[in-house]
Each structure stands twice: as structure tokens, then as C-alpha cells.
């Protein structure tokens, strides 16, 4: 039915696929960012405030797989952005920080300094987690705030 050459190609392909599947199963059992198609939320914040990025959903946790932020410079007080989690309106209850306040530095006028870029995570590994039953928020500070970006996550 098949020539030897075709049979050999089929067998070789099968062997490689089986091996690749075995490798994938090691990670998929443990890290949601590896095992699932991630979702994203855009970030666009223009005031010093706490902004909810991902709403809580029952007892689900939020596994953050990566993020990219641009934090604009501003006069007199440096713009910063910090991830945190909590419950209630804009993570106001049981608040816990997940990162430091990225971007602390530039305090010159917006027009004369570059924007800070913070880019972390490749989307294939969890970099931090908002535990079960919590929402994910970002806290911004500074004057002339302009924090833009995207956060990639799995909620489960």
C-alpha cells in the first residue's frame, strides 16, 4: 500500500510528534501560561489612580504571563506603575503588591525626556500571580501620568 519511503517518513514524523508531546505534557500540568491560550488586557492610564485590569472571577486566580508598559516622563513627580491584587472596587480590599513601582526616575518635562519601557515575560511562563478570588490592578502615580501597555494573562 505504502512505499518503504513513505512508510519511513510517516514513522519518523510519528516518533518526533510523540517526543514533542511528552515534553509539552511536563509543563502543561504545572503552568497555566504554558498550557493555555492567554488573554490580554490593554492598559491606558492618564491619572494617578488605581485601575482594575482584570476583574475577579469567583475563586479563579490570575496568572500573569507577561506585560509591556511605557511610562511617560512628567514634570516634578516621576510617573510610576505598580501591579497589585485585591478584592473590592479597584483592588481596595486586602491589597497586596506584586511588583515594585516601575519607572521611578524622570522628573523633567514630558517633551524633553524619553519614555520608560518595561517589558517582562515571554508569554510562556507565569511571572506573578493574583491568588484565587482576587482582581489584578495597576497603581499609577506622578503628574501628567501616561502609562500605556498590555498585560497578558490566564484566569482560571
Amino acid at each position, binding site marked *: 500500500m505504502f512505499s518503504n519511503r513513505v512508510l*519511513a517518513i510517516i514513522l519518523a514524523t510519528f516518533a518526533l510528534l510523540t517526543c514533542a508531546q511528552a515534553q509539552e505534557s511536563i509543563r502543561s500540568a504545572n503552568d497555566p501560561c504554558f498550557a493555555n491560550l492567554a488573554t490580554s488586557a490593554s492598559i491606558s492610564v492618564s491619572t494617578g489612580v488605581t485601575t482594575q485590569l482584570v476583574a475577579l472571577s469567583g475563586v479563579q486566580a490570575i496568572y500573569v504571563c507577561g506585560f509591556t508598559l511605557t511610562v511617560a516622563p512628567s514634570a516634578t513627580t516621576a510617573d*510610576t506603575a505598580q501591579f497589585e491584587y485585591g478584592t473590592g472596587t479597584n483592588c481596595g480590599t486586602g491589597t497586596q503588591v506584586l511588583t*515594585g513601582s*516601575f519607572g521611578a526616575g524622570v522628573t523633567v518635562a514630558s517633551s524633553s525626556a524619553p519614555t520608560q519601557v518595561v*517589558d*517582562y515575560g515571554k508569554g*510562556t511562563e507565569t511571572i506573578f500571580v493574583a491568588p484565587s478570588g482576587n482582581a489584578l490592578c495597576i497603581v499609577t502615580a506622578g503628574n501628567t501620568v501616561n502609562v500605556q501597555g498590555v498585560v497578558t494573562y490566564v484566569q482560571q
Partner: protein
Amino acid sequence: MRLLAALLLALLFCNAAHAQQTVRGTDPCFANLPTSVSVNISSATTTSVVSISGTKVVYVCGFALTIAPSATADTAQFEYGTGAACSSPTALTGTFGNGVTVAASSAIAQTVAHGGAGGTLFVAPSGTGLCILSAGSAVNIQGVVTYVQQ
């Protein structure tokens, strides 16, 4: 004969892939769900990032830091050691951010981000903790470290 040769080749490929899988499968950053810790340092000191836990090893899977400029360049260096804050330390990295020496008001912070792709970047050996050694004036180092301790 050709069929046998092809099967042998496939078997060799499979064994090679399996060996690679075993290597990756033993990497804690690949095989486990990592933990994270926030970084917030405002003085020139040694700060414990991950405390010692018995004989466990700290596998660093990734980190992102912003290092603010200051009149004396701010720097951040990962190291490991024993005690509360890595006494008798051993450096794990160079001193990131070594550069900006102008007033904090006129330069951008340095961003250093690495990893987060499912592999170990560096390791604090068994029975040691992970620390950041910070230096400079007007120190402001912010960020997050992702790790597995086991």
C-alpha cells in the same frame, strides 16, 4: 534496508529529543509554577529577596528592574549567601545600571528585564538566599523577581 535505516534514524531522533526533554524536565523553572517577589529598594544596602529555606535552592526564572538615575550611578547586583542578608556573598550577576550619574531629574531610569520564558537564569545554591546589592545615591530600584525554591 532503507526502511530499517529510516526507522533507526527516527529512533535516534526520538532518543535525542527525549534526552533534551529530560534535561528541560529537570529545570525547576520549566517544570513548576514559579513564585514571585516584589522589589522595592531605596537605599544602598544588601536586601534579601528570597530567604533561605533549609537546604533548598533558589532558581531564578526571570526578573524586571527599573533602576533610577542619581548623582552617583545607582546599581543593582544579584548575589547569594547565608544569614539574613547574604553574608559572605557570591555575585550572580554584574552590577546592572552602572551608568547614569546626572541628577535624578534629567535622565530616564534604566530598565533591566530578563527571562520569563520557562528556564532558569541563575541559581542560589542549596542552603543560601537570594539578595540584591544596591549602590548609589538617591537609590530607587523597583521590580519583580520570578523564581522557584525547591
